[in-house]
Every structure is written in C-alpha cells, then in structure tokens.
C-alpha cells in the first residue's frame, strides 16, 4: 500500500482560500442574460422578420417564447448542476410538461400553415438563425462550465447544448411567423442538434475536470 502522506502534506501546504461556487440556479440566472444578449446581437447580423403580434395566433408565439426560454434555462441549470460532483443532473419534472406543451405549440403552428408538410430546402433562414444565435451562447456555456469543471463533461455539455438550442428557439420566435411547415420545424431541430454536437466537441476538453 502506497503511503500518500507526502502528497497530502504537499497539497495541504499548497492550500489557499478559494471562492466557493454559487448554487447552479444562481449561476444559470447570472449567465443566461449574457448568453441571450450575445445571441440576440449575433442574430442582428442576419436578416430578421418581425412576428405578427396582432394576429389571432400571437398567443402561440408568446407561449412559444416563454416555454422555449424556460426549457433552455432549466436545461442550462441542470448542466451547471451536473458539473458539480455528487449532484443530481435530472431535469425537473415540470420540464416534461413544458416540453409536451412546446411540442403542442409546434403542432398548432404546423396545422396553421397552408402547406403543413412544406418543401425540401424550406426553412434555411431559421436553420441559419438558430446556429448564429447559438454559437455565442455556446461559448458562454463553456465558460460557465469551466468554472467548476465537470466530471462528466459529455453529459454537462449535452445539457448545455439542449439549453442553448431552446434559448435560440426562444429568440427565433421573436422573428418567425407562427405558422410553419414540418420541414421548417425539422430544420430548427437539426440546427439545435448540430449546436449540441458542436458544444460537446468544442467544450469536451475545456470543461473536463
């Protein structure tokens, strides 16, 4: 059996006061406005169309924004929590209901479309928008996770990626017609999945503890 005394002495001799990390919800609430702000600024580079807030389905757009941002925040919070050793990484139970409601709104949007199925190639604007909005948010998420490091970086970054995707959907809902086609919706999801993949690849080494 190795005697670890020398290592312990060296670590104890090296110990300095450290600043404890704040709870995950507090960190998430601190970082999310920064991420959303940068995401919004990035999207000003692309062409934006305003949502029709006077239309009969404006409530769908409003509910979509609220649900997307809430789900994004919940996933980001779970991601920051998963970075800390010994913490639960489960999404809260209400997030399942929020996700179901979000999918329900997507179905309402698709059914409101004159061409529900859409055509291949449709939704290129939304796809680019989600990617452009998500990239700066991804950088913020990696910076936030680096503060604690993560023992399970892939899990933490996947949750971050999901959070970023939903936040980008939230920003997209400000400048997207309520009615959308299936192809359009799949384009949104594909962009979010790509963002998730990029987040994992870009942050895996940076956040591994």
């Amino acid at each position: 059996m190795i005697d670890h005394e020398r290592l312990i002495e060296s670590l104890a001799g090296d110990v300095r006061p450290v600043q404890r990390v704040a709870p995950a919800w507090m960190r998430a609430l601190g970082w999310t406005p920064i991420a959303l702000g940068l995401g919004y600024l990035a999207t000003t580079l692309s062409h934006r169309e305003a949502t029709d807030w006077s239309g009969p389905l404006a409530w769908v757009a409003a509910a979509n924004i609220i649900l997307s941002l809430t789900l994004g925040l919940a996933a980001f919070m779970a991601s920051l929590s998963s970075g800390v050793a010994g913490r639960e990484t489960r999404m809260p139970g209400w997030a399942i209901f929020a996700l179901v409601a979000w999918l329900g709104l997507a179905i309402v949007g698709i059914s409101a479309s004159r061409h529900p199925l859409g055509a291949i190639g449709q939704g290129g604007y939304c796809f680019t928008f989600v990617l452009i909005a998500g990239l700066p948010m991804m950088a913020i998420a990696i910076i936030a996770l680096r503060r604690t490091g993560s023992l399970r970086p892939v899990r933490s970054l996947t949750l971050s990626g999901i959070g970023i995707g939903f936040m980008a959907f939230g920003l997209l809902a400000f400048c997207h017609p309520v009615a959308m086609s299936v192809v359009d919706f799949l384009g949104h999801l594909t962009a979010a999945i790509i963002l998730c993949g990029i987040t994992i690849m870009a942050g895996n080494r940076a956040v591994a503890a």
Partner: protein
Amino acid sequence: MPDDLPSARQWPDLMRRAQNGDQRAYGLVLRALVPAVRACARRQLFDEALIEDVVQDTLLSIHRLRHTYDPGRPLLPWVVAIASTRAIDALRKQGRSRDKEVCEDMMLAEMVDSRAVAAMERSGTGRELGHLLALLPERQRMVVEMVKLREMSLDDAANESRLSVPAIKSLLHRAYAKLRDVGRQSDD
C-alpha cells in the same frame, strides 16, 4: 494513526475550513478521506497498484475541485463521485493501454523496427540449427557445415577435409539419419 483521524461528522466543517485556507484542517480531512476513497476504488478495481493510483488521482482532483464543495451538504457523496470517476478513468486508461500492449516478442520487434523481425527469425533459426549441429559428432557436424551451410561441392569438401568423397557421403548420410531421429523425438 487512524485513532487521530476525525470522524465523518467533522469532515464537512474541516473541508469548509480548508476552503478558507486552513492547512491543518485540510491535511486532517484528506488523511481521513483516504480509506473511504480506497474503499470506493476497491469496489470497481481489483489491482492494488491501480487502486492506489486512483487514491492519488482522487486526492489531486479533490484539491483542484475543492471550491465546488458545498459545506452545507455531506462531504462523502462529493468525494465518492470524484473517486468513482477517477476509478472509471483508470479502467478506461488500462483498457486503452492493454489494447496497445504488445505481448509477443515478434510483434514488439516489428513495432520498433520492421527489419528486426527478419533478423530475429534468422537468429531464431540460427539458434535452432546451432543446437541441432551440437548434437552431431564432430566429423559429421563438420561435413554438414561444409556441404549444407557453406554450400561446398562434395569434391571441395573432400579436399578440405582430406577425406574421400564416399566418406563425405557416408558422414552426411549418418548425420541426416541422426538429425531425423532427433526431429522425430522432439515431435513426440
């Protein structure tokens, strides 16, 4: 000195003091944690040397991540999560190095230098041949060396050995018979 180690109830407070820079508290809590970390690693690993490596890695990780511990929570789940991750890392690393490990001398030689394999084959054959020739009486060995290894003709071998060609043939015949017997015995 396990009697001097603090009890588990004191660990969160010691860690809190360590986070504030208290070297003595930190030393105490790290010493107290070693058996718990070892027990945790032992649940996943069987190799004692690897277990001790995991204990060291875990101590280093605790040091690096000590700012993430919340003193309001029990310390053990935090430590166990770190130790389990380090044990899994060690298993993965061991798996990867086992995949790359070269057990056979020939494969090892080929990885270091592809020409080495041919040299080793030559040397192996040479060793085996030397061993077989040593079993032969001196005159038979000399004749085999001249005719088979140095590729001399029967006449040249006869001239060099000052023997007649039939004598060379007879010696070769007896040498082959002897080697055949040796080969049969080793096959059995």
